[in-house]
Every structure is written in structure tokens, then in C-alpha cells.
């Protein structure tokens, strides 16, 4: 809802008495001058609300006096429940993510169904669970790719002064950070043994999202901007602060690059500062030899990897001895440059895991948490230990929490409900709907918690509820609503009902859109819904004068009642006599009615009537006895058919006087003539009724027909006897 609230024209919702929190106020920009006379509110698709504001109807005099530019009212659309994803992603990027992710989601659920089919019992067997876990991992990775690949612009010649990694083409988005965090903790079981290192990597990618100003990343970004203009870097306190910060969160490559910018590497000064340079290089060496408990390192990253805990502890001890050795080395006395000496010693303290130095170097509690994991408690395992540590860090460094940090806190507190609720609040319904499968992948407890049917949710589970929320958000946009059925179909309790409502609410004006909607009905086997939609489309087209298209939809929906009603309307249109010229116009419609499959209802008559007219035409132009006989047959069929309207009886009989007076002998038998006579009698009786619709035939028409029929009867009796 764009715009600034103004006192006179904003709409304020009715405040509930006694609620502890004040209700949120959403100003609505409608651009009308006060006073507002009336407001109409109605639901549109999904969570879209239509609000119509009307000004009071103008007085007559006012009308005269006023300029014409004043609008009487305005309708605005209000999207409730916010965005599908967090706010800083563009609208079309959101739709793209919605389109792409439905493929992965549908694929995963197909696999789920096929796995469930293979199993006989209620619970999946061990091999099936492994398969399931693998599918979920693939799913998680494909979703991660959809959220954006970090494509880097690597400059051909690297500037030694560029120590930060080049800016990514796409800024990291919080949704992706949250997704990766959940993947680390819930799906990727292989990573459990090196969870701390995985978190170090995660922080490196998304540190800038924690806070705008108070992060290691922001500190380094400022330093990066300044470093090009600094002449003597080692004199600047910002340089040493940046170094300490980068080291604390484990960005070793950045530390090494930064240290090599030290003035003692300058060939001109090398002779004078040999010892100093030796000390800097020794620290670089120690940093690049830091033992790390992980299987491998990506290119360009520093450290020595250890696969097993045993090797790692041995390596760590050796390395720590080296670090302490350097710290207590006599060479420090010969280092004349005081900031260098202090700065390097500070770095060594961080490497040795001095809690105070680490706390000084980091800005955010999450960074402090990561550096504790790196330097003080590298073997922390299990969520409980991590949770305690995180709490401690939060107390040490109280910083403003955002969606990501509260998500991590939620994960560490082992409460999936909180995780999902936090995600929904911070990143919108998309991530929650897709994350349910991540959370339940490895935990039977979570699976039970999220997929248990709850009475207070109308039989739906928590997982289903989140799915429905996302589907509603999708359904509120005319471009994404087609994605929603894939999610609704997985909701066993409420999904089908909502899917039916969604389909019935689609516009029926454009037949191509109707066909697309029907396709979805077909896909989910919603035959009765498609019948409804076809009827609605038929009504719309019929009302708008597109009779053919309307009849087509009614035929498709096999709606006999409406077709019969339409038939009566059409007969009025045709009028009393159907001339041959006017039939040309009806040709197309007749073709439609004549198709063998379509139900024509009362309209069947039209088709037969035309056939009869055609054959009669041939006889007038000089036809054979066979042709005349055929026409007579058609006449009898028409007269026998109950769907032939009474008002057409007389014109029909009048048209066939020629047949009745056929020269070479009677064409109608006795019984058939009697039938026609009976109809004629019925007609003369009906003529007495006030509601009789006689038409504009000549007054003696009835008499003419009666005479012809009587003559024919006489001839037929003679013939048959």
C-alpha cells in the first residue's frame, strides 16, 4: 500500500476493546477528497481485497457549479499478508522463484508418493528413509540454486590491494541464507561432524546480512575503500582492527592478503625492517597453517584440513605450541614499530583463543559465537552445547536480532515450530512452505509434530497450514495462481476445497483462460468443477451476445435445462417464418448443434427444421418422388418430436401443403395423416387460449392445411384399401 497516511483520507480499522496490542493501522491511498460516503469491501482472488470508496452523491446545484474533474469514487486493491518472499526482492524475481521452485517441490512429492507405494507398513523402512533423505538433499540443493547462484566477476588481473572478495553480481538474499542454515542443520547429515566449520563458511557468505553497520564485513568494507589511499597502512588503527576482526571469524585468506600489505614488505624499507617483516611473515605462516576440522577447503582458502578428531587434536596441539612459541619469542623486543608489535600480538592472542581479545575483535553476537567455535571450543557438537554457547554470546554482545539470528537461535533451541514461525515473519510464506520437508527429513519427532492432524486447525496439520498460506499468497496474483494447485493438491484436509474455490474464482471472459482453468480441473480430476466453470462461461458469453460460444459451453457442460431455455429465446429470434436467407446466418450454429456428440437440448429442433427446409427447397426446384418421400419423413419426425415448439406446427404444415398435394399419389399413409390431423386439432383448440402465439400467417392458413390433409387422407384410404 503505497503513499503517506493523511489524517483526512486514511481508513482506520475498528479497534477491538481489551486487546493488549494496538491493532496495526494500514493507511490506504485512494486519492479522494473527504468526506467518504461509503466503503465497499469484498474479497478478490487469494488474499487480495477490493476496497471501493465512494464520495457522497453530488447535489444538483453543486453538480452545476463544480468542475468535472472530481471523481465520484475509486476502487483499490489491497494485498493482505504481504509478500511471498522477503521485501527486498523484486516482484518478478519472486514470481520466478515461485515458478522454479514448484518443479522441485512437485518432483520431491512424486518421489514421496512412489516411496510410500513401495512400502507396506505405515512407517518407511531404513533403505526407503535413506532414499528419502537423498531426495530431500537434492531438493534442498535445487532450491538453493533457484535462490541465486553466487556468480562472481573475477577480474583478470587481481589487484593486491583488493582483499575482500569482489562484490557479487546479486547481493546475497536473506531467504537464501535462511535456507542454507536450515539445510546445514536439518538435511546435510554428512556435515554434522564439521558443523562449526560449516557455520564459518555460512557466515562468510552472509555476514553482511546480519546488520548494516556493525559487522566484520562492514568494517572490512570501510577498510577496503580506505586502503587504496593509505600510504602507511600499519600506522592506521583501522588496519589492525580489520585484521583482528577478519581473523576472529576465520577469514584467513583475507588476513593473509591484508598482512602482506604491511609496509615492511616494501623493497625500499626491507633492509631497515628485516625483523619486523620476519614477524609479520611468521604470523602469515601460522595463520595459513591453522588446523581445521573439515574434509576439504575450497580454492584460495587457507588452513590444513583434518578428517578425524584424533588427527585434528594432535595437529591443533602442535600448532598451538608454535603460536605460543612465537608469542614468547625474543624477537618482539627488536620490533621498533609499536602498532605492528601490538597488532601482531593481538592476532596471536586470537589464534590462541583468548576470550577477551576475541570479544573485542567481533561486533555481532553471531560473529562472537563463530569465533568461539573456531578458537575456543572447536569440538563443540550437538545442538545443546551450541545453544548454550549462543546464549552466552548473546549476553556478552547484545545486538539487535533480525530474522536470520532469531532463526539460528530457534534452530539451536530445537523447536521447529518457532523456526517456522520466525521464518514466516522474516521471509514470508514461500520459505516456510518449502522448508517443512527439510525440517522433517531426518527427525521423526518433527515429522510427527508438523504433520499431525490437529483438531483446532480444522483437521489440518501445521505443515499443511503453512502450505495453505503460501498457496493463498500465490493465488492472489493473476500470474502465479496456476502454481498454487500443485501445493493445494498436497494438502490432504483443506487443499481440495480451497483448490475448488480457487478454480471457480477464475475469470471466464476469455475462453483461452477458461480452457487453461479446465486443464487444471482435468489434471486434478475435478469434473464437477469444470462443469460449473463451463456453465459460468456459457452464461457470460450468452449474456454478452456471443450466442454460439455460449451454446458451446452449455453443450460441453451437458446443461440441458439451460439449453432448452435458450432454445425458446432463439425461436423468438427466428420469428414466425424462417426465410431461406435468414438461415444462412444460422448456418454456423446449426453445424455446432448438428455435431453428434454435443447435446443440443431443445435446440435439436433447429437442426432438424433446417434439414426439412433444405429438402423442401430441392422439391420446389423440381424433385423426384424419393426426395419428396424423404421430406415427408422429416416432416413426420418433426411433428412427432416433443421438442418441436407448438408455434412451429402451423408454419411446418403450411410449408408441406405441396407435399400433401403431390400429383403422383399420396405420400403420407393413413396413420401419419391422422397424426397430423390430430396436431391440427390440438392447434385449433389452443388457438382459443389467450396466451396463444399465432404469428403472422394468413388467416385462412388453418383451413388450407385442413383441406389438404383431408384430401390426402381420402387418397391414402383409397390407396391402402
Amino acid at each position, binding site marked *: 500500500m503505497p503513499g503517506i497516511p493523511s489524517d483526512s483520507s486514511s481508513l482506520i480499522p475498528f479497534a477491538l476493546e481489551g486487546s493488549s496490542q494496538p491493532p496495526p493501522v494500514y493507511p490506504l491511498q485512494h486519492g479522494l477528497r473527504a468526506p467518504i460516503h461509503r466503503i465497499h469491501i469484498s474479497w478478490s482472488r487469494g488474499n487480495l481485497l477490493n476496497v471501493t470508496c465512494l464520495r457522497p452523491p453530488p447535489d444538483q446545484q453543486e453538480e452545476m457549479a463544480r468542475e468535472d474533474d472530481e471523481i465520484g469514487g475509486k476502487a483499490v486493491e489491497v494485498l493482505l499478508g504481504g509478500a511471498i518472499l522477503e521485501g527486498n526482492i523484486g516482484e518478478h524475481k519472486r514470481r520466478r522463484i515461485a515458478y522454479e521452485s514448484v518443479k522441485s517441490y512437485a518432483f520431491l512429492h512424486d518421489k514421496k508418493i512412489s516411496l510410500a507405494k513401495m512400502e507396506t507398513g505405515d512407517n518407511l523402512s531404513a533403505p526407503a528413509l535413506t532414499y528419502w533423505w537423498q531426495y530431500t538433499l537434492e531438493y534442498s540443493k535445487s532450491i538453493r540454486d533457484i535462490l541465486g547462484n553466487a556468480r562472481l566477476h573475477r577480474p583478470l588481473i587481481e589487484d593486491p590491494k583488493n582483499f575482500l572478495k569482489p562484490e557479487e553480481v546479486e547481493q546475497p538474499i536473506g531467504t537464501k541464507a535462511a535456507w542454507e542454515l536450515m539445510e546445514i542443520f536439518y538435511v546435510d547429515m554428512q556435515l554434522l561432524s564439521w558443523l562449526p566449520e560449516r557455520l564459518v563458511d555460512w557466515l562468510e557468505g552472509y555476514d553482511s546480512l546480519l546488520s548494516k553497520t556493525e559487522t566484520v564485513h562492514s568494517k572490512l568494507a570501510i577498510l577496503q575503500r580506505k586502503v587504496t589511499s593509505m600510504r602507511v597502512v600499519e600506522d592506521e588503527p583501522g588496519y589492525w582492527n580489520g585484521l583482528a576482526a577478519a581473523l576472529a571469524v576465520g577469514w584467513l585468506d583475507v588476513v593473509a592478503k591484508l598482512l602482506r600489505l604491511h609496509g615492511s614488505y616494501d623493497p625500499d624499507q626491507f633492509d631497515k625492517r628485516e625483523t619486523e617483516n620476519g614477524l609479520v611473515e611468521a604470523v602469515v605462516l601460522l595463520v595459513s597453517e591453522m588446523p581445521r576440522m573439515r574434509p576439504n577447503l575450497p580454492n584460495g582458502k587457507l588452513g590444513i584440513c583434518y578428517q578425524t578428531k584424533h588427527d585434528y587434536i594432535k595437529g591443533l596441539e602442535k600448532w598451538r605450541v608454535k603460536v605460543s612459541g612465537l608469542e614468547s619469542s625474543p624477537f618482539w623486543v627488536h620490533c621498533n614499530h609499536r602498532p605492528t608489535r601490538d597488532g601482531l600480538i593481538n592476532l596471536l592472542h586470537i589464534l590462541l583463543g583468548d576470550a577477551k581479545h576475541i570479544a573485542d575483535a567481533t561486533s555481532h553476537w553471531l560473529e562472537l559465537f563463530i569465533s568461539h567455535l573456531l578458537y575456543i571450543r572447536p569440538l563443540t557438537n550437538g545442538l545443546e552445547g551450541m545453544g548454550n554457547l549462543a546464549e552466552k554470546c548473546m549476553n556478552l554482545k547484545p545486538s539487535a536480532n533480525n530474522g536470520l539470528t532469531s532463526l539460528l537461535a530457534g534452530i539451536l533451541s530445537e523447536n521447529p515450530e518457532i523456526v517456522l514461525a520466525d521464518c514466516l515473519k522474516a521471509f514470508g510464506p514461500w520459505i516456510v512452505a518449502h522448508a517443512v520437508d527439510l525440517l522433517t527429513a531426518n527427525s521423526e519427532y518433527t515429522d510427527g509434530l508438523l504433520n499431525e492432524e490437529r483438531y483446532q486447525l480444522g483437521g489440518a496439520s501445521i505443515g499443511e497450514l503453512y502450505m495453505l498460506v503460501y498457496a493463498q499468497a500465490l493465488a492472489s496474483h493473476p500470474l502465479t495462481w496456476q502454481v498454487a494447485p500443485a501445493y493445494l493438491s498436497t494438502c490432504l484436509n483443506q487443499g481440495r476445497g480451497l483448490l475448488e474455490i480457487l478454480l471457480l474464482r477464475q475469470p471466464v471472459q476469455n475462453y483461452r483462460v477458461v480452457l487453461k482453468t479446465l486443464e487444471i480441473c482435468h489434471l486434478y480430476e475435478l469434473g464437477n468443477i469444470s462443469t460449473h466453470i463451463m456453465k459460468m462461461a456459457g452464461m457470460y458469453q450468452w449474456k454478452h*451476445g456471443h450466442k454460439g460460444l455460449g451454446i458451446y459451453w452449455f453443450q460441453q457442460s451437458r446443461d440441458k435445462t439451460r439449453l432448452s431455455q435458450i432454445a425458446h429465446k432463439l425461436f423468438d429470434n427466428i420469428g414466425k417464418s424462417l426465410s431461406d436467407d435468414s438461415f444462412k446466418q444460422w448456418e454456423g450454429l446449426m453445424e455446432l448443434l448438428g455435431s453428434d456428440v454435443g447435446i443440443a437440448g431443445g435446440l435439436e429442433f433447429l437442426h432438424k427444421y433446417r434439414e426439412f427446409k433444405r429438402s423442401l427447397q430441392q422439391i420446389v426446384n423440381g424433385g423426384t418422388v424419393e426426395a419428396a418421400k424423404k421430406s415427408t419423413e422429416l416432416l413426420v419426425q418433426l411433428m412427432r418430436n416433443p421438442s418441436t415448439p407448438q408455434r412451429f406446427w402451423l408454419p411446418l404444415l403450411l410449408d408441406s401443403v405441396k407435399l400433401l398435394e403431390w400429383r403422383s399419389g399420396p405420400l403420407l399413409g393413413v396413420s401419419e395423416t391422422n397424426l397430423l390431423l390430430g396436431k391440427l386439432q390440438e392447434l385449433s383448440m389452443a388457438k382459443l387460449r389467450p396466451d396463444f402465439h399465432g404469428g403472422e400467417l394468413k388467416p385462412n392458413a388453418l383451413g388450407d392445411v385442413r383441406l389438404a390433409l383431408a384430401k390426402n387422407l381420402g387418397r391414402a384410404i383409397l390407396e391402402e384399401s
Partner: protein
Amino acid sequence: MADSGDRRRFIYNLHEQSKPVGAVRWLPSVSPFLRLAAMSVLSPPAIEIHSFSSQSPNPNPDLNLVSSYPLPSSATSLTSFKSHNYTLIAASTSTGSLHIFSVNPYDGKIESQIISISDKDSFHCGPIQSIDVETSSTGECATAGEDGRVNLVLIGEDKVENFRVCESDGLVAYSAVKWGSPVEFVTGGVGPGLQWWDKRRPGGPVAQFKGVWGRGTVTGMIHSIDIHPSRKHTCVVGGSSGAVYAWDLRWQQQAITLAGTGLEAKSQPFSESEVWEVKYDAFTPQVSSTKVLPVMMCSEDGFLAVLQQDERPVQLLEEPCAINSFDIDPQNPSDVIVALEWESVGILSRGREETEMA
């Protein structure tokens, strides 16, 4: 089911658009290095001309928006053609207007508007579902609408003339039109029938084809018709229930089913959803001269495939969303442009060497 085509020899690039794309058409290109394509987009409704370089070293050349022609409402039909060395684009809209404008063939910039008709009484009232321009001699544009009117618009030197061929007063709805010769054209609409019209014999269609759709179990709508310039007596038609059939004017009673539920019971239908567009495919070699020429089709369930009489369909694409429209470049029949439901445009190049795949 269908054979999936030899994908190794294809290059397929997807170009994301940030708005829905309705129809796509290649534009005649003057330079082999710069290709032009027109597409109808929504929000706001317009025809956009995009260019891309076909010879760039980048394996995934970007589509660049060159120019845009605003429309009063969403486009329903789009066609491009050449006339007197001009590249022209014709588009019809859902509010019954027709727009023709010229485009610079070198850079794709819009040059001038030639026609913009919109008249509820004398032209169309309601959506024009299909247009086709007769390019070999008269340059007449046939328009067929949901309102049951068929009009011919003559694009003269200095004036525009408009003839009403048929006024059915809404009793029928037309959804497809295609010229067969300078004086004859074919229309299709609701119901499986086709109407063959001759300008020289006004008053009504000169021939009616009564189609039987899917062994008489369903009826449907016709969405697209194509007529090959060398075989003017055969129309190929695409419509509901995955139906693609050919109708020969010389054997009016029997249509040749190429795909859909009308096929013999033993073969499974290839696609059961709406076939949005059909076109003769000049790239696929013809098997026999007595058979219907190869036809390409796109469908609501995301298939792009080449159909041949009595052969299994060759599937080129299988997308997770509908393919609303496609066009085969008349100058390079190996190249196909497709418009996907999910706001993107794909360009498929067939028959290149495998090495280019990288």
C-alpha cells in the same frame, strides 16, 4: 509415447522476461548477425521488438528490447510479414482493434503506424481472435472474431478499406483464420468444423468441413490453422484435446488425424490438452510426397513436437508450463522461438554441431 528428439544436437536458451508473453514471431532479418523477434506482452499490453546476436561467442546471447508499440488492450493475435521491402507487424487485441505498423529491418526500431482500426459497429465488437495477412498479391488482412464477424482489411496506398465478409450476430464464434490463396481463406471456431471462404462468392462459406473430434467422444475448439503455400488444398488444424488433423479440400469427408484422441485406439494420445498453435515445419525432411508435410505443434501441457503422418511424434521440448505460442523462422527453419507461460521466451536451434553445446 513420443520419441524424445536427439537433444544433443539442439541448443536451447531460455530468456526470462519479467512480464507475461503471449505470442512470438520472428521478423525478417537483413543481417545474419542480428536477429529480430516480435512478442506480445502484457502489463502494460504492447508489442515488443527484441534483438539478439546469433553469431556472438557467448553461447547464451541475451535478448535486448529494441522498441515497443503500446496497445489499448491485450494482444490476441500477432503476425509479421514483408511488403514492398517493409517489415510490417500486425496485431489484434481483445477489445476488437487491429494495428499494423512498420519496423526498421536493420535495427528493429518502430518506424510508422500504418493502420489502427477500432470500431464496434463497422469492425469488430469483442475480441478479434485471429488475423492473417495475404502477402503474395493483395496484402489483405483477414480478421476473425469471437463476435462472429469476419472482416477483410485492404491496406491500400493511401487509404484503408474494410469489408465485412460475414456477420453472424454472435451465433458463431471464430477463433482462427488463414489465407489459402489470394482469394480464398479458411476459418475455424467453436466446434470441430472448418469453413472455406471465397472472396468471389460472397454470402457464405463455399465449403464446410464437418470434423469428427476424437472418435466422436468430445467436441472442441480450433485454435490454429496453417496452409502450406505449395499445397493450398490442405489445411492443418490444431485444437482441443490434443487434436491436430489435416483436411484436404479434395476429400472433404475424411480428415487425416496427426495427433490427438482421434488416432487409432492402439496408439496413446501424445498430448491431451489444448494445441495452441500448429505450423508446417520446413526443417524436418518429408518422408513421402503423398503424405501430409511435417507439422510442428505446441500445447498447454508444455510440449513442442513435430508430427508426421503415420509416424511417432518427435518431441522437441517438454516444459513444466504451457507453451502458448511458437514461430519457425522462415529464413532459417532450424530456429524456433517459443513463448512460455511462466514469463519467458525460449530459442531453440536445431541441427547444429555437438561441440557448440558447450
